[in-house]
């Protein structure tokens, strides 16, 4: 980790009419750091993630991102073209439902290769080689490269979605409940895989989860949300082992009972 943040979030709020989505969120994210956003359903996790990733315009606040040239840019003041370029090169977004992040009617190879083609790769053989390599890294056998994700299990689809996002070597990945729809045994394998990739690639990630076990396994730091507000923020081990807020204590104790 360097001494300059990758992302600076200041006063981000999102209202749906008069209803609060999230309110006055502030934090910084460092390169290579994994931040978990936890809280129960309806607490504003997805709203915040969508604001940070510019999929949603916040009502107030700013998010600055350090570009590869070292300069900070305010995401909400970028042109749409610049933002979309950033999203498909330097960022990844892993949806809870893989169907939302994959093209279900084209092959696994094309799903992984799409970003490469989007940035101008025009050599079929090389694109295929890179796609094969990435399928291997997410533990999908090379002989499935021409199969459509429709034929894949939920866990495979999720791994394919991850490969599709990482192929351009992004520096920041957003994940919304990445293990949400999966069986427990499949979840564990996916979490191990994600943890390995994040470590190997030195990725920064913001992971939304309602599952504190996921936060424990993946994240360095965490944010606890309730009713759209950040009520606790700290190193993951500290928050989980020594929660300060009564609400966090409740959350932690309810998972420990399970």
């Amino acid at each position, binding site marked *: 980790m360097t001494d300059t943040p990758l992302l600076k979030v200041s006063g981000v709020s999102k209202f749906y009419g008069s209803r609060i989505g999230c309110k006055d969120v502030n934090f910084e994210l460092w390169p290579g750091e994994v931040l978990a956003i936890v809280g129960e359903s309806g607490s504003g996790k997805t709203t915040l993630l969508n604001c940070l990733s510019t999929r949603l315009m916040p009502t107030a606040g700013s998010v600055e991102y350090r570009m590869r040239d070292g300069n900070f840019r305010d995401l909400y003041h970028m042109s*749409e*073209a610049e933002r*979309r370029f950033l999203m498909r090169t330097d960022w990844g977004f892993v949806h809870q439902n893989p169907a939302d992040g994959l*093209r279900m009617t*084209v*092959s696994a*190879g*094309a799903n992984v*290769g*799409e*970003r490469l*083609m*989007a*940035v101008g790769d*025009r*050599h*079929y*053989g090389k*694109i*295929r080689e890179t796609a094969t390599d990435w399928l291997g890294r997410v533990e999908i056998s090379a002989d499935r*490269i*021409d199969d459509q994700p429709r034929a894949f299990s939920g866990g495979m689809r999720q791994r394919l979605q991850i490969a599709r996002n990482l192929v351009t070597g992004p520096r920041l990945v957003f994940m919304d409940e990445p293990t949400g729809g999966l069986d427990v045994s499949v979840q564990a394998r996916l979490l191990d895989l994600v943890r390995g990739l994040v470590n190997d690639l030195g990725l920064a990630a913001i992971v939304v989860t309602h599952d504190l076990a996921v936060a424990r396994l993946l994240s360095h730091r965490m944010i606890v949300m309730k009713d759209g507000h950040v009520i606790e923020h700290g190193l993951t081990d500290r928050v989980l082992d020594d929660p300060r807020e009564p609400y966090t204590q409740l959350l932690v104790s309810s998972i420990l009972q399970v």
Partner: protein
Amino acid sequence: MSADLATYNFAYLDEQTKRMIRRAILKAIAIPGYQVPFASREMPMPYGWGTGGVQVTASIIGPDDVLKVIDQGADDTTNAVSIRAFFQKVADVAVTTHTKDATIIQTRHRIPEQKLTEGQVLVYQVPIPEPLRFLEPRETETRKMHALEEYGLMHVKLYEDIAINGRISKTYAYPVKVDGRYVMDPSPTPKFDNPKMHMSDALQLFGAGREKRIYAVPPHTEVVSLDFEDYPFEIQTFEQDCALCGAHGVYLDEVVLDDKGGRMFVCSDTDHCEDRREHGHVGAMLAQDSVKGQEAAE
């Protein structure tokens, strides 16, 4: 029918509609390959019969024009004959089957073999103008992709084709990039004709009636077929020559002769074929026939 049509304006459409369509055409020419929306009108023929092309032709045709209409390269199909008859009736223009004599050529599927020249206009009838439609059904999204020049998806489609078929098997409506900017669907023409669009001396106009879009390739404009470095764009090649006129390197149609598997390949461009035969070129089939004829006479 002629009595009814006689009460219509020259070339069927009223002047205000023509002005609206001409404005769309001018805009299309100014932004090569860009799909300009226009208020497509009801025409006295069903969609799928080239109502987009007919409206474009109706808006640019004048009393001195000479019109040729082709369908799959032929001047004598029902579709071509009825569109030609329509303009004879509503615009009283001269018609021809000879490519070189025409000032406006309305086409479905083919570009004539004879090289088009300056001053000629080729009007394409287009069923589906959006090349990105196949992978992205949302119109709002495809418009954005054009605006931001996000064309990665076109190559995804070609990638998929190679992955499944071992080569780019797409043989018609093969996507092109126009003037280094907009990706365009060249309508259901065979890819054989794509190179003819490139740096053409003629003006090329595309009309999609049901989809309400007009686009254009002005004369002397770059039209490049999309491909991969290791799978370059190639046109169809035919081993045979035309059985009737002996032409080589032209687009051929297969014609079934009998139910015993007999078949021949002939020019899809009927005018080109007739013109060659008039100039004494003879294909294998006609040569055989004339030998047989001589034998019978002896």
